Structures are given as C-alpha cells and as structure tokens.
C-alpha cells in the first residue's frame, strides 16, 4: 500500500463528504421506512418547510446563524488540533454576558447595545473555553474531558444564576427580566416583510462576518499559520519557536467566543430574555457542521444551512407526517457525524484505489507496484 496517493483535492473536499452524507441520508431513509413512512415524502416536506415560503426560510436562516457560530467554534479549535466539545456550555454562559449588557443598555440604541453585548458574550464564552485551554496547556488535562465537564458545570451555574440572581421578583418562570427596547437585535422582517414572523435577525450579519474573519484568521495571518502548524505537528511547532501552550489558550478562547455568539442570536434576537437551556444542543450540531464543512468557512456555511434546513424542515415534518417526530433530525445529525467523522475510513481507501486506476500513468504505476509486490 506504499503506493497509496492522496485523493485529488476536489474529491477530498467535495466527493468524499458527499458520499458520506448520502450514506447518512440513506440510513435515515431506511429508518423512516422502518416506521412505515415514505422517505421521499419526508424529504419533500422538509425541503418545502425549509425553503418553500418566507416564514420557513426565515426560520432556516435563524437556525443556520446558530450553527455557523458553533461550527466555526469547533473548526477553529480543530485547526489547532483541539476538539472543543464544549460549545454548548460556552454559548450557554455567554448568555450571561449578553443579557447583562442588553439589560443595562436597554435605554440606549441597538447600535450601542449590540456591539457591547457581542463583546461581553464573546468575553464570557471565551473565558469558559479559556479555562479548559489553560488546563490543557499548563496542566496537561485533556481538553475533551474538561470541556464535557464544563458543559455540566455551566448547566448547574446557569440554573443558579437564572433562578437566584437574574430572575426579577415579579416573575415565576425561571427567566431573566425582559429586554424591551434597545437591547433587542433588529429583526430582518422589519426590513423585508418576506420573512413573515420568523425570528431571523441581524445576528446573521455577525455570522457572515465571523465566517470571513475566521477565513482570514486561519489562512492569511501569522497566527493562523502557527495554529495550523500546531494542529499538524506540535513537535514541529515547538521547534519552530511557537509557544504551544500560548497558542492552545488563545485558540480555545477564540473558539469559545465564537460559540458565545449564539447567545446574541438567542437572547437578544429571539427570546429577548435569558431562559434556561436556550442553546438547545446547538453546540453539538456544531460538531457535525464542522466535520461536514471540512473546517473551512465555505463548507461550514453550507453545512450550517443544511442543518438549519433540517431543523426547520423537521419542525414541519411532525405536523405533516405525525408518524415522524423531530427527533428524526437528531438521528440524521448523529449519522452525519458517524459517517463523515468517525467512519471516514469506510470509503477513503476504495476511493483512493479507484482514482489510482483512473488516469493512464497512475494505472501504469499501480500495475508496476502490484507486479513488484507479487515478484518479491
């Protein structure tokens, strides 16, 4: 197998993920078939629900916004060889920063409140990821385990903060005071009536800026280069004079800050208050998004849109086909992670072999190799 050569770039970037995605959908289709429903009808419902009309499309974009942030969070960490599984917790605690600033600046203007809240949410989310980064860099504890633990610590912390600190005396429900005026991020429907009542808001602009920002950071800055060197080979990066521990801490902080942007979309754009569990697993969707998007902003944007559409379409699904609940979407999500992430080795070898036989010179080489093998 020494003659194994890497796949052409387009196959690595597009073909292999497409095959894995197709497999994930195929298995999901089989599950739908198993419960006695028609998978093609289900796909039709999902596509119409996600793109067919203004409200639906608006919801799709609203979900997409969240998944862009968490996908980028996972991707940035992945470029430095870190697996940030704590996006959920980071986004959750970032809600504290967002809600405190939004409530404090509620009487000003959204042009003041929103940037301030972005900074606050990024700072809190970043801090929640910095600690695991610091522990990995300085104390050698595995960042995966620590971020898992931090998800649970965040959940306990937020229940306490919401119930004991943020909840006004007048409300019974576990939620913060309502953001009324300037702390609300403007909705896109205020500008385009096309979006109906859907909650897609200006946070999506931040998401686009984040995509561009991450692209520049990773491929066009010295820092991004150092990050990728660290991810590819920590020993080499150390010999190149890069401080690995510093890189790990900064990268994790950036990752957490990106996850924290979910809080802007949810707290200031949709709920207008801090509610329990507002992240609703978006951090874990980010893992699927980053895997599918190959950690590249363009891929992440497309994958986030796909999952946004699945989430919105999945909501419709349970109304149109009562036999299928929206948990089907979680199943699809899991299968995507399984096939594009963990079982990537399923098709890669055979695809590599297929490509070797594709061009004449490569074929000749392959034959030469196999002859040499059989002779030896």
């Amino acid at each position, binding site marked *: 197998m020494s003659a194994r050569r890497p796949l052409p770039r387009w196959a690595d970037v597009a073909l292999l993920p497409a095959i894995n995605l197709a497999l994930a959908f195929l298995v999901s289709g089989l599950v739908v078939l198993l419960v006695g429903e028609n998978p093609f009808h289900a796909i039709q419902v999902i596509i119409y629900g996600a793109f067919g009309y203004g409200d639906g499309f608006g919801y799709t974009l609203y979900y997409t916004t969240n998944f862009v942030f968490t996908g980028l969070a996972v991707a940035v960490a992945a470029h430095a060889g870190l697996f940030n599984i704590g996006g959920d917790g980071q986004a959750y605690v970032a809600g504290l920063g967002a809600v405190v600033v939004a409530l404090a600046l509620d009487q000003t203007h959204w042009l003041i409140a929103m940037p301030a809240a972005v900074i606050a949410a990024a700072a809190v989310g970043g801090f929640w990821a910095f600690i695991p980064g610091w522990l990995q860099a300085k104390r050698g504890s595995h960042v995966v385990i620590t971020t898992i633990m931090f998800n*649970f610590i965040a959940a306990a912390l937020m229940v306490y903060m919401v119930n004991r600190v943020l909840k006004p005396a007048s409300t019974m429900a576990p939620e913060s005071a309502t953001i009324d005026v300037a702390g609300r991020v403007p909705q896109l429907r205020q500008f385009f009536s096309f979006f109906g009542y859907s909650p897609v808001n200006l946070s999506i602009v931040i998401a686009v800026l984040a995509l561009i920002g991450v692209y520049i950071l990773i491929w066009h800055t010295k820092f991004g280069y150092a990050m990728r060197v660290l991810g590819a080979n920590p020993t080499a990066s150390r010999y190149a004079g890069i401080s690995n521990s510093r890189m790990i801490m900064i990268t994790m902080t950036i990752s957490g800050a990106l996850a924290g942007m979910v809080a802007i979309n949810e707290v200031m754009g949709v709920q207008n208050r801090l509610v329990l569990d507002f992240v609703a697993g978006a951090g874990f969707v980010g893992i699927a998004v980053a895997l599918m998007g190959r950690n590249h902003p363009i891929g992440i944007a497309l994958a986030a849109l796909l999952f946004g559409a699945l989430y919105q379409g999945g909501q419709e699904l349970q109304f149109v086909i009562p036999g299928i609940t929206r948990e089907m979407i979680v199943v699809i999500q899991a299968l995507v992670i399984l096939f594009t992430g963990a079982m990537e080795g399923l098709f890669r070898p055979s695809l590599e072999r297929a490509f070797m036989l594709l061009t004449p010179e490569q074929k000749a080489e392959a034959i030469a190799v196999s002859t040499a093998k059989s002779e030896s």
Partner: protein
Amino acid sequence: MDLAVILSILDATIRLSTPLLLACLAGMYSERAGLFDIGLEGKMLAAAFAAGAVAAISGSAWLGLMAGMVVSLGTSLLQGVAAISLKGNQLIAGVAINMLAAGMTTFLGQTWFHQGGRTPPLGEGGRFETITLPFANELAGVPILGPIYADLISGHYILVYIAFIMVAVTWFVLFRTRFGLRLRAVGENPKAVDTAGISVVKLRYQAVIITGLLCGLAGAYFSIAQGSGFGNNMTAGKGYIALAALIFAKWKPVPAMFTCLLFGFLDALQIRLQSAELFGIEVPVQAIQALPYVLTVVLLAGFIGKAVGPKAGGVPYTKER
C-alpha cells in the same frame, strides 16, 4: 440526624451509585484497552430504551434485560468498528453514538408507543423486584447492625448486587488473569502486544464487547429496576458522570466503586436537600450537582493527585506494513 435519616440517604446512595458503577466498570475495559469511550451515555440510553420496550411488551424483566444488553452490545460494536477497524476518531465516534441513541430512543419510542417517547408503564413481572436477603426481617430488631443489614444491605434489586460483585470480578480479570494483563498492555503499548504475536484488534474488540454488556446492565437498571418504563433522556448525563468517576478513580476498579458511591451520595444529598448550610454559608443545591464535575476537573489538572490514563488511549492501532 438520626439513624433512620442517615440510613435512608445511604440507601439512596447505593441505588443511585449502581448505574454509575456499572457504566464506570464498562468504560474501564474499553479505556484500559486504549479506546476512549465518551459513548457510555448513549449505550446506556439505548439499553434503557430496549429493556423498557421489551419488558413492556413481553412482561418479563429478564427478557427486557437481555434486550438491553443486546442493543447496548450492538451499539458498542458499531462504535468499535468505527474506532478499531476503520481507525476513526474515537471521540467523534462516541459523540455520534450518544446523539444517535438520544434521537433513536425518542423517535422510536414516540412512533411505537405514542406516549411522548415513553414506554408503557411496566406491570407485575416486567420490572425487577427488590431482593430481601436471608434473615433480614429477623435481624431488623438488633440495635444499629440490624437496621443496617435489613435496610441498607438487604432490599435492593439484583442488578445492585451484580454491580458490586462486578467490582471484584473486574479487579480479578484486569489484574490477575492473562487476559487482563494483555488488555492493559494493549492500552499502554499496543505495538509490544502485537510483537508478542497477540492480536491488538481482537483484544480491543473483546474489550468493546464487555463494555457493551456492562452498559446494557446499567441501562436496564434505569428503566426496569429503578424506574418503571423508559422515559425521555432517562440517563440524564449519568454516562458522563460515570466517565468522570472512571478518571477520578484513575482507571482502577476498587477506587471506582468508592468514587461512584461518593458521586451517588452527592446525588442523593442534592435530591434530599434544596440547599445546605456549611460553616454558616448557604450552599446552593446546584453547587452540589456540579461538584462531581468540578472534582474531576481539579483532579485531571493535577491539583489533587494526578490522573494519567492509559498511554495508547485514543490512538487507533495501525500494524506496520
């Protein structure tokens, strides 16, 4: 606090520790063999659902238990194929398994039983009964020792006793058998094991099988012993606490038992208390809930002792060509 209160908290501790302990021991086999397993939660959840569903349909707790173990085994093997044969990322495989179980159990539960993801409540025989140990009733009158024996040690589900027996069995298997030695070697230095002519892949699959079976016991405990029927997301993150306990116990069976008892005790405490006073400062119940995770982070960071896992953990083994 009088003896009755203490006994009732300790009794709850044992009941709540049992699934942690089973899952923790399950994870020990995989991780000792060099496979990171963050999919304990998913395997337990899948098993809990299968056990609850089959017990509800068949009316037999034992059939439910078997179903739970079979499904957990299948889930574990799926994870194993990804992590061992396909040399995929073990952590990502674990995440996928957890998500798959969370989605599938709710989805199938709703589709099959139409009770919002729950399985039907179990009737007589569908659920394990508690076992009264011999002479428990006769000895209950004996001061102090009597209630301890009758209330604390006697009167649990059979899975509770299996869990604690498994601690001794696991210790024996890991540290006193040839299989255990090889298993531990595979987690530390798979190349050496391979050089000695022992199949790394086979050993790792054996570990994955044991992990699956034990997770099946842990999952079944939720739905057909402690609870009566499966409920949405029934394991509620216990798989992660078991993982934390495994690290806290430094991958050793007897410390694992004590860690699980400690974490179970914290759980029992937070259910009983809404908040506690400690040195005049009010300790919120959420702090008690977060304590197992905080303790694990602190331990991992090496502030109190040092937890160093099996050296080859997380690395797929590639035989040299």
